[in-house]
Structure formats: structure tokens, C-alpha cells
């Protein structure tokens, strides 16, 4: 009887394991991993006036002869056309500057929350999380009416007599930076906060007791210990911003194209699916290194007893 029950339990456990691991794996394999194989396939095809608008890679020419045509033209276009190169560089630049700005603004905020009295922390954290979930599109849209030539900011500055003529703010690189910082700041603050709350602040007291100046103690103790949170937050900002579409589209101008816009135009405007696929893979290739870095860090943090 007892043995039977044990056997049954073992079977149940195996079944649970199969479902728990299998179902999400299957879903993500089918709808996340498999698509990339198809993107690769299509990036090697040629555009055609057909539905779907690309040629087939293989063809039976004769009895028993399968002809495979791989078109590398798309990748060579992506790598050699200066327009794409400029867009890639601009995307990386925006992501880099955006990440640094988020860090400079987000670090003191995360630090203030992590060291605030316990009862305030929950509320403050909630205040950071709330905009993070509030419609991204709407938050970007909100900046249009602020930055327009006859917008709220120009009205305010002219009313105060700071400037005489309206500043051109919308459709500039500055507007993109504002949009990026505004939209991605919470992604920086949350992991930093999670890291800083676990920090042992008695180390700082020890440093102070030994005569260390506060700023030096920060550089020598706090900053190195918060490095995992810092890198995690930076990656959470950097990776999605490289492929950002909405912010440059709504706040940027024609000179501030990012790779997300190019991809969108190739796909929806020019209906060049193979080229869009090649752009997607190049963008993906660019993001592999930062993603792997983030994953490694995650595992290291997980390994630590928290």
C-alpha cells in the first residue's frame, strides 16, 4: 500500500515536471525561437511581386535536382549602405547616451529610496513602478505637446522671459534623449533599488569610523557593491533602446533615424521583406553580447544567497 502510494507520487512528480517545463518551453520554442529560423530563411531570399513578397529558396529544376539559391545581397546592402551604417551608429549612440543619462538620474533616486525610512519605501517604489506600466505610447505622446514650437515648454520659457523666440525642440536628437530617459528611467531604478536595499550599510559606517570621507566611501564601497544592479539596469535600458521605434518616430526628425525606423520603413513602406529580415538579424547580432552579459550577471546574483 505504502509502496504503491510512493510509486504514484513519483509518477505525479514526473508528470508535473513534464508539464511545468514542457509547456512554456514548447510555446517559446514555437513562437520565439522558430521565428528566427524563418527570419534567417527569408533574409536569404529575394523580393518578388508575389504573396508573400519573396522568392522561394529552393526549386526542383529537373528530375531529382534540387536547386538552392541563397541571396546574400541583403546582408551586403545592410553592411555597405551608408544609410544603414548611419542608422546603426545613431541607434547605438542614442542607446549609450540614454543609458548613461538614466544612470546619472536613476542612481541617486534609487539610492534615496533604498535608504529612506521603511514605511516610505513601499510608496516611493510604487510611484516609480506606476509610470513604468502606464501606456508607453501615451507617455511619448505627452511630450509632443510640451516640446512643440508653440508648446507648453516654449510658452513657459517665453512667459518667464528666458527666451525671446521659441526653441526648436521637437524632432531633434534632444527630444529623443528626453523620450528615452522618460520612458526607460524606471527600468534603471528598479534593479538598482533591489540591489541597494540588500547592501550592508554598516560597511559605510565602518569606513566612516576609519576616517573615510563620504564621497570616497561611496566610490570605494557602495559603487562596487552595487555594480550588479548597475549593469542589470543598464542592459535593461540599452538593449531595447537600440531597437526603439516609437520614440524616434514621434519625437525625432528625419535626420535622427534609428535602425527600428529603417526596419519599419523597409517592411511597411517598401515591402522589402528580405531586406527587413536581414536588418532584423543584424540588429539581433548586435544585441547578443549585451544580452549574454546580462544573463551571466543574473545567474551570479541568483547564486548568491539573498
Amino acid at each position, binding site marked *: 500500500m505504502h509502496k504503491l*502510494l510512493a510509486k504514484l507520487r513519483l509518477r*505525479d512528480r514526473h508528470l*508535473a*515536471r513534464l508539464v*511545468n*517545463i514542457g509547456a*512554456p518551453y514548447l510555446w*517559446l*520554442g514555437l*513562437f520565439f525561437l522558430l*521565428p528566427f529560423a*524563418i527570419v534567417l*530563411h527569408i533574409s536569404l531570399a529575394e523580393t518578388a511581386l508575389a504573396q*508573400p513578397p519573396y522568392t522561394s529558396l529552393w526549386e526542383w529544376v529537373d528530375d531529382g535536382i534540387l536547386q538552392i539559391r541563397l541571396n546574400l545581397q541583403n546582408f551586403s546592402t545592410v553592411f555597405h549602405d551608408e544609410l544603414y551604417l548611419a542608422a546603426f551608429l545613431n541607434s547605438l549612440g542614442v542607446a549609450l547616451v540614454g543609458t548613461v543619462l538614466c544612470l546619472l538620474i536613476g542612481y*541617486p*533616486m534609487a539610492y534615496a529610496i533604498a*535608504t*529612506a525610512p521603511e514605511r516610505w519605501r513601499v510608496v516611493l517604489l*510604487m*510611484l516609480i*513602478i506606476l*509610470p*513604468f506600466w502606464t*501606456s508607453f*505610447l*501615451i*507617455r511619448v*505622446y*505627452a*511630450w509632443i*505637446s*510640451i516640446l512643440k514650437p*508653440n*508648446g507648453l515648454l516654449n510658452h513657459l520659457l517665453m512667459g518667464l522671459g528666458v527666451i525671446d523666440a521659441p526653441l526648436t525642440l521637437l524632432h531633434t536628437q534632444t527630444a529623443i534623449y528626453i523620450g528615452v530617459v*522618460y520612458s526607460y*528611467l*524606471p527600468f534603471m531604478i*528598479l534593479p538598482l*533599488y*533591489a540591489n541597494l536595499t540588500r547592501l550592508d550599510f554598516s560597511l559605510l559606517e565602518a569606513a566612516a569610523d576609519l576616517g573615510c570621507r563620504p564621497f570616497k566611501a561611496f566610490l570605494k564601497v557602495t559603487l562596487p557593491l552595487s555594480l550588479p544592479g548597475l549593469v542589470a539596469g543598464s542592459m*535593461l535600458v540599452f*538593449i531595447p533602446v*537600440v*531597437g*526603439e*521605434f*516609437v520614440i524616434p518616430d514621434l519625437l525625432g526628425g528625419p535626420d535622427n533615424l534609428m535602425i*527600428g525606423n529603417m526596419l*519599419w520603413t523597409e*517592411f511597411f513602406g517598401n515591402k522589402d521583406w528580405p531586406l527587413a529580415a536581414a536588418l*532584423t538579424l543584424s*540588429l*539581433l547580432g548586435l*544585441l547578443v553580447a549585451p*544580452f549574454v552579459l*546580462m*544573463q551571466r550577471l*543574473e*545567474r551570479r546574483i541568483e547564486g548568491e544567497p*539573498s
Partner: protein
Amino acid sequence: MNHGRWKLYTFLGLGLAFLYLPVLLLIIYSFNESRLVTVWTGFSTQWYRELMQNRQLLEAAWLSVRIAATNATFAVILGTLAANALVRHGRFRGRTGFQLLLTAPLVMPEVITGLSLLLLFVTLEDLVGWPNGRGFTTITIAHITFSMAYVAVVVRSRLSQMDRSLEEAAMDLGARPLRVYLSITLPLIAPALLAGWLLAFTLSLDDLVISSFVAGPGSTTLPMVVYSSVRMGVSPQINALASIVVLIVAVAVCIAGFSLRQRSAGANSPPRA
């Protein structure tokens, strides 16, 4: 309190003002009488009334809500299974790959996810005849794929903090694992499930880029309508709509946040984003 702390808190206050002021202005100007969004001429609710008569917009909103609710339900199921796998099955073979697959959609630029899913759907339709056309189903599938990771993060942190003695007691009394899971574990992690559902719902309601790729003709979601209208310029009707969306999301997030805080007040670790 010393001088440094005050500086720090002032900075925090300014940062929060930066986060909230634009949305606040947006809401204020949705009650503006003038069509010009930047000049205040008087209080009016006419844009809200016009909004209620905009059929195209209301239809899109209804589609978005249906997609969001379906997405949230499936995302909670799959996300909870994934959290179970990570917390309960220890270091199974392929765990690294599993985790990689689960977190990649979180940071993946939306244009990549959108394009690759569309190409999958087109190819599948070509090969096996499914999905027949694009719309509700394809958008929902796309949303589940990235929402389940968020649910997994929330449920996982709850599951790993959970006190397992009740489960063990039930096991000792002879209950089968599934029974234990359904009648003991699930009620204990219910706040996380609710929070996960609401977060998946708001994520789906908000998505523009991925939906644009995998939508078909005749399946226009709310963000798609908002986007095409925004490209034409600022309009007070969109301000009114945005205010309503902000209100709904804020309520959902507050419920999610507080239901997570409940009963876990002692264990003060936030979900890692």
C-alpha cells in the same frame, strides 16, 4: 537629518516630478475647451463626449480589451508553469536555455519580435493553412509570448518566498501533488496570480509595435488608432482617451501592487524586473 540627505530627497522629488508632470499636463489639457492643446481657454468635457461617439475608436478599444483579457489568462497559466519549473524543479537539464528563452522576450526590441512572429505566421499559413488570416488570434499569441515572462517573474518571487510547511502537511496526509497544488499552493500565490494577470493585461493593452506587425486588415487595436491619429498631430480627443487609459492602468497597477504587498509585508524584496 543631515545636509546630504536633503539634497538626495530633493533630487528624488525632482525625478518624480519629471516622471509625473507630462502625464499630469496631458490629463489637465484633456479638459481644455480649445482645440489647441497648449492654450487654456476654459473647462470643458466636450472631448470626452466626442470620444464616446467615435465608433472606430470604440471598436478598436473593445478589440484591445478582448485581446488583453485573453492574453492575460493564457499568460498567467504559462507564466505560472514556468515559475513552477524554475522554483520547484531545481537544476533540471536545459534550465539555462529555459531561463534564456523566458527572459529574452523581456528585453528584445519590439520590432524584432514583431517582424519575426509575422514571418512565422505567414510561413505557417503557407505550409499548413494556419492561421487563416491575421487578427485576434495572431495578436493574442504574440502578446502571450512576451507577457508570460513578466508573469513568471512575479509568480516566481512569490513562490520562492512561500512557506512550504502547509504543502508538506497535506502531502503527509496523503494528498496527491495536483490536489495539493490546486487547494493549497494556488490560494497562497493568488495575489501574485492577480498581479500577473493585471500586468499582462496592461502590457497587451499598451502594445503598438508588435500588434502592428501581426495584425491583419480589419483588426485595428486601440494603440494603432492612437498612433495613426498622433502622427497627424496632437488632438484633444487623444488627450481624453489617454487620460482614461492612464486612469484604468493606474487602478490596475495599484491593485496589483497592493495585492502583492499583502501578506508578504515581512519579506520585503521587490520583483526583479
